[in-house]
C-alpha cells in the first residue's frame, strides 16, 4: 500500500506566524488570545478572540497587486501559509491538486454602507459598482484562494474547496490522504484557512451562545475540559501542507514531518449545534480512522481533541474517547491546543494537525492550558497547563463541525 507523508508545512496562527515559532509557543503553553483590535468591540458581548497579530498584509498586497480586490483576512493567511511551503525550495507540485477547507464567505458590511450610506440600497450599491468602484469584493467566493494560488504559481491541478464548517480542513487533508494512497496523485497541497473575526462573524457566534462572554477572563476565556468552561473563543489563521507519496518524497530528499495513516468521517445526523450526547458520531469517525489505519486503540499514544471549551462538546468528546478506547482512554494524553489559539473554525483541523507535527518533530506533548478545576464528567488525562517532554508515535486528531460533521485523522511519527 502506498504511504503518505507530510513534507512541508506553513502556519499562521494567533500565537505564531510560522511553524518553528508555533512549535515553541505550544511547548511553552503560550496563549495567543486577547482583545480584538480590528474594530472597536466595546458594545459587543464577546471581545476576546484569537487574533493573528503583527501580520503584514501590505507585504502580500505589494507582492500580489491583484489582491487589491480582497479585504477578507483569511485569504491573506492562507496565502502566507502557502508561501511558507515555498520558502526552502520551490519545485514540483505544478500538476497537483489544491484541497483546502474553510467555512463561509465573509460579508464586507463596511463596503455595503460605503457605497450606500445610512440605508442599504442595492440599486445605489450596484450603480456605484458600475461606475468602476468594484473593489474590494463584498463577498469573496470560497474557491478564490485556491484559484489564485493555481493561477499565480501555474499549478494545473483541481481546486477542491471543502466547506464542512469546523471539520473542513481535517476533511480536506484526510480526503487528500486517500487520493494519494489510492494512487490518484503523488502530491497534493492541502490545508485550511479561515477568519470570522469581523463584526458579523463575532456577533453572530456570540448570539449562538457558543462563545465565552466573560471578557474579564482575558486569555483564560477558553478553558477546555475545565469545570468552569463557558464556551469557546473565535480564532483565525491557516495551515498548509505538502502531502506526498513516500517514495516520491524520498526521491526529492525532503524532511518528512510525519505520516498520515488513517482517516474517517461521519455525520451525527442528530442536531445542528450540538453533538449526539452518547458520542456515537465522533466515536464512529474515530473507529473508521483506526480501521483505515489498520491499528487498534492500544496503538494510539496521543489524542489532539476538538476540545472547543463548550459545555457539550468537551463532555461528548470525552464520552466518545472512552467509548472507542475503553479503559485505555485513561492512559492516553488528550490535549486541546484550542486553549492557546481559540477555535479557528474551517482552519482549526489544519492548524491542529500542524501542532501534532510540531510535537513529533520536537518531542513534546502540548498542554491544555487554563485547566484548573477538573470536571468530574471530563476525567481523562488532558495534559493540564504544562507541556510534557515525551515522544509520541501515533496521534489521533478529532474535528467536529456545526451540522454534525465529524472527521478524524491518524498521524504517525516517521522513523525512516
Amino acid at each position, binding site marked *: 500500500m502506498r504511504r503518505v507523508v507530510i513534507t512541508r508545512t506553513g502556519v499562521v496562527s494567533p500565537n505564531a506566524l510560522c511553524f518553528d515559532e508555533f512549535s515553541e509557543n505550544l511547548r511553552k503553553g503560550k496563549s495567543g488570545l486577547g482583545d480584538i483590535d480590528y474594530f472597536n468591540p466595546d458594545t459587543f458581548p464577546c471581545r476576546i478572540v484569537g487574533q493573528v497579530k503583527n501580520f503584514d498584509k501590505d507585504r502580500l498586497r505589494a507582492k500580489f497587486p491583484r489582491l487589491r480586490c480582497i479585504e477578507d483576512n483569511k485569504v491573506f493567511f492562507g496565502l502566507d501559509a502557502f508561501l511558507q511551503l515555498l520558502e526552502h525550495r520551490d519545485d514540483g507540485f505544478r500538476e497537483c491538486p489544491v484541497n483546502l477547507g474553510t467555512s463561509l464567505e465573509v*460579508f464586507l458590511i463596511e463596503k455595503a454602507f460605503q457605497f450606500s450610506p445610512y440605508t442599504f440600497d442595492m440599486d445605489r450599491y450596484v450603480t456605484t459598482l458600475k461606475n468602476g468602484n468594484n473593489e474590494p469584493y463584498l463577498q469573496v467566493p470560497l474557491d478564490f484562494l485556491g484559484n*489564485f494560488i493555481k493561477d499565480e504559481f501555474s499549478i494545473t491541478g483541481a481546486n477542491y474547496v*471543502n466547506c464542512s464548517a469546523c471539520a473542513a480542513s481535517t476533511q480536506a487533508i484526510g480526503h487528500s490522504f486517500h487520493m494519494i494512497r489510492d494512487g490518484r496523485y503523488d502530491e497534493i497541497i492541502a490545508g485550511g484557512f479561515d477568519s470570522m473575526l469581523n463584526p458579523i462573524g463575532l456577533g453572530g457566534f456570540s448570539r*449562538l451562545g457558543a462563545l465565552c462572554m466573560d471578557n474579564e477572563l482575558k486569555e483564560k476565556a477558553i478553558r477546555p475540559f475545565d469545570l468552569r468552561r463557558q464556551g469557546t473563543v473565535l480564532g483565525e489563521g491557516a495551515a498548509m501542507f505538502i502531502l506526498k507519496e513516500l517514495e516520491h518524497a524520498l526521491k526529492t530528499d525532503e524532511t518528512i514531518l510525519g505520516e498520515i495513516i488513517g482517516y474517517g468521517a461521519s455525520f451525527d445526523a442528530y442536531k445542528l449545534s450540538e453533538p449526539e450526547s452518547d458520542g456515537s458520531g465522533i466515536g464512529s469517525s474515530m473507529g473508521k480512522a483506526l480501521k483505515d489505519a489498520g491499528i487498534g486503540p492500544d496503538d494510539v499514544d496521543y489524542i489532539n481533541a476538538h476540545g472547543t471549551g463548550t459545555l457539550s462538546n468537551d463532555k461528548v468528546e470525552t464520552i466518545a474517547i472512552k467509548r472507542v478506547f475503553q479503559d485505555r482512554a485513561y492512559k492516553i494524553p488528550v490535549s486541546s491546543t484550542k486553549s492557546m489559539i481559540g477555535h479557528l473554525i474551517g482552519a482549526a483541523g489544519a492548524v491542529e494537525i500542524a501542532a501534532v507535527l510540531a510535537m513529533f518533530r520536537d518531542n513534546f506533548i502540548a498542554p491544555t492550558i487554563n485547566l484548573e478545576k477538573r470536571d468530574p464528567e471530563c476525567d481523562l488525562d488532558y495534559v493540564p497547563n504544562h507541556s510534557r517532554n515525551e515522544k509520541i508515535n501515533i496521534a489521533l486528531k478529532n474535528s467536529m463541525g456545526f451540522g454534525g460533521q465529524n472527521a478524524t485523522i491518524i498521524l504517525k511519527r516517521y522513523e525512516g
Partner: protein
Amino acid sequence: MDRYNPVITGISSICSLGHHPEDTLERLLKNDSNFSKVQFKSKVFQDRRVAFVQDFNIRNYIKDRKTLRFMSKETQLSVCGVLLCLADSGITVNETYDENEIALFAGTGSSGMNLDDIENFLNNTTDDNTGLFSPQKFGQDALYKLNPLTSFKILPNMPPAVAAIYSNIKGDNLIFNPWEGNALLALYEALHEIYFGRANIVICGGSDCKTHSNAFITFAEYGLLEKGDIVLSEGSAYVCVESHECAMKRNAAPYCSIRNITHRSCPGPPPYSISSSEKFYAEIIEKALADSGLEPGDIDLVITSDDVNVNIDDAENNVIRNTFDHCVVLSPKKNIGNAFAAAGFLNVAIAAYILKHRLPVQEKKIHRILVTSFSPGSEKFVMIFEEL
C-alpha cells in the same frame, strides 16, 4: 471506472420546471420555461429574469414548523432532494443499508445570505453622522435583534448536513463549494469512493438558490451578469450511486451506468475561471471518448451546460457542433435557468431519466448520453452515461 461498474439507482430533481424528473423532462422537451421577474425591489435588476421552483412547500416534507426556522431555501431544497432520491432508489435507511454505510457527498452554492432577511437589521448599524457602518452601533442597536439561527442559514455545509439529519445518513461525507463544477466533484469523488472499496453507496448531488438579491449583487460585482442575460435559478438534484454488484443484490432497478467521468481544471483568474479556449474543451471531450473506447458517433444525445444567452458559451457550442455533427443536443439551462451548484446534477438526473425510460428525444432513440459541465468556475467535466 468500470471495475465496480457504478450505476445510478435513484434520482431527484427539483427545479423551476417541476419537483420530479418526469415533470421536468416533459416540460423541457416541450420547450417550456417558467421564468419570472425578480421578487426583490430593484430598478437596476427589474428586467432580469429568474427561475423559481414553483409550488414548493417544504411542509409537505417536514412537518415540524420550529425546525424550518433555521433552514435557508437552499437547505430546504437539499433536504427534499435527498429524501426524494432515497425514496426513488427504494432504500430504507437501516433496512437496505446501515445508516453508517451510506455516504453523502454534495455541492453547495455561494452567497447564501439573503439580504432581504437581514435588511432591517443591517440598517440599524450605521453611524448617525457619516452613514457608514459603525461596529459600536452594530453591537449596541442591532446585534440583539440578530436571530441566533442566522448562522445556520448561511453556513454552506448546512444544506447537506441538515439533509443528513432528516434522512438519518451517518456515513462518510464531503461537501464542496461554490460553482457547478466544484459541486460535480462530489460525483467524481463518489465514484472513486466506490471504486476503491470504501463505500458501496453514495448519495450525491447539489443544491443552490441564486434567486435572491445577494446573488445578484455578488454576480454583478464579479462581472458575471454582464456576460449576457443569464437566468439565475434555484433547485436541487441528487443521485444515488451504487456499485453494480450491490444494486443487483438488492434487486434495484438502475437508471443507467456511469461509463466515464473526465475532469479537468481550467486555468484562469478568480473570482470565476472561464476558458474561452475551444482546444481546452475539445481535449476534455476527446479524452472522455477515448477513455471510454467510444467515437463521437456512439453518442446519441449531448446535454450541455450551455447558458444559451451567455456569450461565454461560444467555445462550448462550437466544440460540440464540430465534434458531434449528427447528434441531438439538449441545453436544459435554456428552460430551467442556471442553478449553479445544482445545475450539473440536474443535467445528470435528466440524462439518467431518459436512459432508464428509453425516452426518444427529437424522435431519436437514446442509448448513450454525454453531459458537459463547462460553466463558470475552475472545474470542468464531461460525463458519459449509458443504458443498462
